[in-house]
């Protein structure tokens, strides 16, 4: 059961006033423009035991994503496709407000939005990950551990998941004598496009991207928009307890295309370097 609650982070009145004043002048407390991302770092292959991995820092938000590939049954209704399973855990290391335990609704939403960006953009051609149609398929686990949380976990986690997938080398399984055999060889994942999400939030009448935790604590509404490599939209998730005007949404969509392309260039660069 979903429940509205106080933001866990309390931004003091004076600080919030400063934030609003800065925003009214097109600036933010950390000096950024409204449409400016924070510094963004990717390190690949940080977890050798995974089939692919990435550590992403977006400002002070930090996420490690790891890929593990197994075989198993396909999902019901998707018998001709490999299975993709995205999970996320906001580790209790990440902030004073995280309680260890099973994922809460915010973490479930986070994992599902990251999942949809990958799935709906058809980033992976899952039809190429089938061993016995309807029976045995590749199962790709994308697990994301959020180590430090300072806002915009949607994008930080999505970038970590996508770059871990792009740089992964997945095992080649074969069917031999009715059994699944790990051949010991590896292959590139069947990637077709690079989905990139851009999250915008509204504070009063201003819309700004890549919010910090402090900004999220003051936000009225949030929207995460994922585009693919040719600039089409693949997934959207509006969140938080406020609303947007239609114009604000259309503008955020355009921002997602433009800023998403910047991020995509960077992801391509980094993952090719190591490819």
């Amino acid at each position, binding site marked *: *059961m979903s429940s509205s609650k106080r933001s866990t982070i309390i931004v003091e009145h004076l600080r919030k006033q400063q934030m609003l004043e800065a925003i009214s002048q097109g600036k933010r407390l950390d000096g950024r423009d409204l449409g400016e991302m924070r510094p963004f770092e990717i390190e690949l292959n940080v977890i050798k035991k995974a089939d692919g991995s990435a550590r992403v820092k977006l400002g002070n938000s930090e996420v490690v994503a790891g890929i593990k590939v197994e075989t198993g049954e396909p999902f019901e209704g998707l018998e001709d496709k490999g299975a993709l399973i995205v999970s996320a855990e906001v580790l209790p290391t990440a902030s004073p407000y995280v309680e260890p335990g099973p994922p809460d*609704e915010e973490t479930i939403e986070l994992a599902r939005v990251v999942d949809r960006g990958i799935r709906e953009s058809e980033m992976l051609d899952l039809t190429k990950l089938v061993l016995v149609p309807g029976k045995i398929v590749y199962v790709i686990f994308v697990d994301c551990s959020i180590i430090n949380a300072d806002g915009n976990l949607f994008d930080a986690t999505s970038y970590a998941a996508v770059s871990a997938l792009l740089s992964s080398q997945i095992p080649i399984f074969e069917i031999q004598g009715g059994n699944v055999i790990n051949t010991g060889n590896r292959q590139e994942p069947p990637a077709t496009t690079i989905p990139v999400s851009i999250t915008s939030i509204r504070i009063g009448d201003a819309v700004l991207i890549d919010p910090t935790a402090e900004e999220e604590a003051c936000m009225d509404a949030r929207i995460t928009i994922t585009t693919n490599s040719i*600039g*089409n*939209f693949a997934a959207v998730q509006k969140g938080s307890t406020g*609303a*947007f005007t*239609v114009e604000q949404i259309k503008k955020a969509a355009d921002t997602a295309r433009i800023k998403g392309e910047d991020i995509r260039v960077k992801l391509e660069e980094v993952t090719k370097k190591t490819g």
Partner: protein
Amino acid sequence: MTQTKNLIDEEGKRTDGRTIDDLREIKITVGVIRNADGSAFIEFGRNKIIAAVYGPREVHPKHMALPDRCVLKCRYHMSPFSTDTRKNPAPSRREVEISKVMRESLEPALILEDYPRATIDVFVEVLQADGGSRCAGIVAASVALADAGINMRDIVSACAAGKVDDRIVLDVNDTEDKEGSADMPVAYMPHLDQVTLLQLDGILTRDQFNESLDKAIMGCKKVYEIQKQALMQKYFGNETELKEEQ
């Protein structure tokens, strides 16, 4: 979503006979749950959904109460027999997410400051699921909130648009949701002209995105009239019906 069949025929008719701008049949009945403070039953295409509202009432446990406004709680749940394959009664991750976005889509319409330290609980039970059950659930919940007499800024309406056979269509049904190539559920407050829910699954170009959003909002406005009618029907009965017919 991968498109596999012809879902719109040469005459522009969809699998269920609608044009691309038609809503499915919608029927809303207000006040169906005797014990609830407000309730509504919606049939939206083949969706059959009950929404019940309890509150404003005391929060349990008390420390969950907020000093300056009401806590809104929301549960979206599917009965095991509501889907083609039996659904496990335990809440799925999908239901957890929909409960959250449903709450967030209703909250902007509610004047929660009017009920400090209290809670309002919204329970949405899907007895039969068709495409667009989250939109239908929001529509019913909004009517149930009004039926409960909760102070509201606006009624939240909801409707999805989607892409089928590369065309943007209104109010995606189950087949179109599964076979079509994009689905965009939207919730919208008609008087405040604001969007409170927006999701997208599937590929849209920039133009399709804008067309889809505009079309979904057009759908919301139509649905809103049905919500209004259902509430008037309950509170003013046949009298209203006669007036409308004039």
